[in-house]
């Protein structure tokens, strides 16, 4: 694999816990160590691909196949469960629900979103008029967003996202809401982005849009990367799959989907890790041990642990003991040296003789 990429994901998986009730959520919340009784759903089962600078990659697939999950992971909104993700540059994501604060006005939303993306007040003032102009909101800009029509909201969301000047633009089915005029405007903007050499990830169900915009397409199928390559090739393969799928009876379709979902429920990440290690050992002629070590680093090197490490647990326990000890030293009123040499004195508090003196100045 070459080194001049803009985005690289390697063996990325994503696990969701399926809590059945509120109490299960709570127990998992306060359980610092593990949460194994809850069923897990693997939304992504190990996906690897690269996106080069200036490329437009389309992500297609049926509903619930994990397209949004991978685009959210790339944009840094949610962390991956395992795997390696490297994104070189600032990302900006546009989703259907535009992520606006409904109680604030349009202008305040522009400011707030700009600040949250790290812009200064001056930079925001500079792009403000462009955003209002692009979103075509006019006088509504000083009204709270809750009074907007849904089209206005998504236009504003899109306008903000493209104007904060990201290197990488991620569009998650956001073009399906606007009318034709706005759609054309967005397309022009996206084309302009491409000309400027910016990278685009485009998630959509509309194969037409994908064919028009994307250089390459990745087909995500129930958590797996089924195919990646030239737009024409992948889109036609996907079309063929769709039409074949439609021909099946409702029962067959249902069974197929259930089967796939069951595989996602039963997915074993440790087995997958072993598999990858095995392959690595074969490909790069490494020793088994070295391959295993490298794979483990690849899988968990970037991920903050979701289980508390043993060291942390012992440190917390030690801190609790120290805290209780010194709390008792304070309460008993002995000196520290005496308390250490004779811990039993901690339960016999001493009272200062001067207690009555203390009260004379009230």
């Amino acid at each position, binding site marked *: 694999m070459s080194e001049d990429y803009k985005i690289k994901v390697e063996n990325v998986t994503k696990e*969701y*816990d399926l809590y059945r009730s509120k109490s299960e*959520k*709570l127990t998992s*919340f306060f359980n*610092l160590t593990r949460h194994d009784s809850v069923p897990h759903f693997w939304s992504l089962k190990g996906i690897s691909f690269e996106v080069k600078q200036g490329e437009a990659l389309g992500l297609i697939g049926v509903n619930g196949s994990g397209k949004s999950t991978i685009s959210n992971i790339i*944009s*840094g*909104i*949610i*962390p991956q469960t395992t795997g390696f993700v490297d994104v070189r540059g*600032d*990302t*900006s*994501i546009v*989703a259907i*629900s*535009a*992520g*606006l*604060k409904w109680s*604030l006005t349009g202008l*305040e939303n522009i*400011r*707030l*979103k700009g*600040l*949250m*993306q*790290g812009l*200064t007040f001056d930079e925001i003032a500079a792009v403000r008029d462009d955003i209002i102009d692009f979103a075509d909101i006019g006088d509504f800009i000083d009204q709270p967003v809750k009074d907007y029509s849904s089209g206005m909201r998504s236009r504003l969301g899109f306008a903000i996202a493209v104007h904060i000047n990201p290197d990488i633009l991620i569009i998650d089915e956001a073009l399906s809401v606007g009318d034709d005029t706005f759609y054309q405007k967005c397309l022009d903007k996206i084309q302009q982005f491409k000309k400027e050499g910016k990278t685009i990830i485009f998630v959509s169900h509309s194969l037409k849009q994908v064919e028009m915009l994307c250089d390459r397409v990745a087909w995500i199928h129930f958590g797996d990367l089924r195919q990646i390559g030239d737009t024409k090739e992948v889109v036609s393969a996907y079309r063929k799959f769709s039409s074949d799928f439609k021909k099946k009876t409702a029962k067959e379709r249902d069974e197929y989907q259930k089967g796939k979902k069951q595989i996602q429920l039963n997915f074993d990440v440790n087995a997958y890790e072993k598999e990858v290690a095995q392959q690595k050992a074969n490909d790069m002629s490494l020793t088994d041990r070295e391959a295993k070590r490298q794979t483990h680093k690849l899988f968990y090197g970037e991920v*903050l*642990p*979701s289980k*508390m*490490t043993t*060291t*942390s647990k012992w*440190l*917390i326990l030690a*801190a*609790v003991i*120290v*805290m209780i000890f*010194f*709390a008792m*030293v*304070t*309460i008993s*009123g002995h*000196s*520290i040296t005496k308390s250490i040499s004779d811990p039993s004195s901690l339960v016999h*508090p001493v*009272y*200062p003789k001067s*207690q009555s003196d*203390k*009260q004379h*100045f*009230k």
Partner: protein
Amino acid sequence: MHTMFQIISEQFSNYKIIRRMAKFDDKATYQSHYLGLAWEFLNPLIQIGIYYLVFGVALRRGDPMPGVPYLPWMVIGITPWLYMSKTVLDASKSVYQQVNLASKMKFPVSILPSIKIVGNLASFWTMLAFSIFLMLVNHMYPTISWIQFIYYFICMIVLLYALGIFNSTVTVLVRDWQITLQSILRMLFYMSGVLFNFATSNFPVVLIRILELNPFYYVINGMRESMLSKGWVWQEPNLTITIVFWMFVFIVMTVGTFLHNKFRANFVDLI
């Protein structure tokens, strides 16, 4: 442990965003009020006036430190208290309020409590200036002991962040925690020696010592001692309380950052 350092370093690397958003917050809160930012100072002043009348004039039971008039003594204590109690409550709501927005973009959620901590500082400085003014009026002048104030200020910020990251995460999952916290703070107000000095009162000694373990008391009393030149961090019993304080902060910080990191990805689903 690694998680904790990661999250703490996020605060420093995003310092600029924190400052700008704190500024934005301030403007947004008071923009619909005619008196605007003045409320940040009028509110505490009215409160101080009431407490002074009740405890300083009517009851005459303030029991401050020897040789210190009641009013400056009380104001120096109530300044950090008002700041801390407001910030603890604001910070505990911070993630819950912003999660819909923050979950739609790349944004370090862990800085949300910090924004409240920094944002509320403005009124803290004004109140502090007011207490120094009161001290000067009462002929108490700066001494070398004021240096300790920097240490206690750091203590206060670290304590607030530890509580903030813990409370904000718990509040997302258990909404009742916010209300519980309000009651706890109301209770702590009377147990942190803000209005009357329990160390010189008729309380039993053991009870006084237990009350001294309260981390809020540590900060309030520490600031008072440094401003009024009445004691040093390393003197007894401050030394043992210092250790208890830092152990408490460490535990809350580790557990809080751990929980925050564990649930960061599903904050949206949890609401």
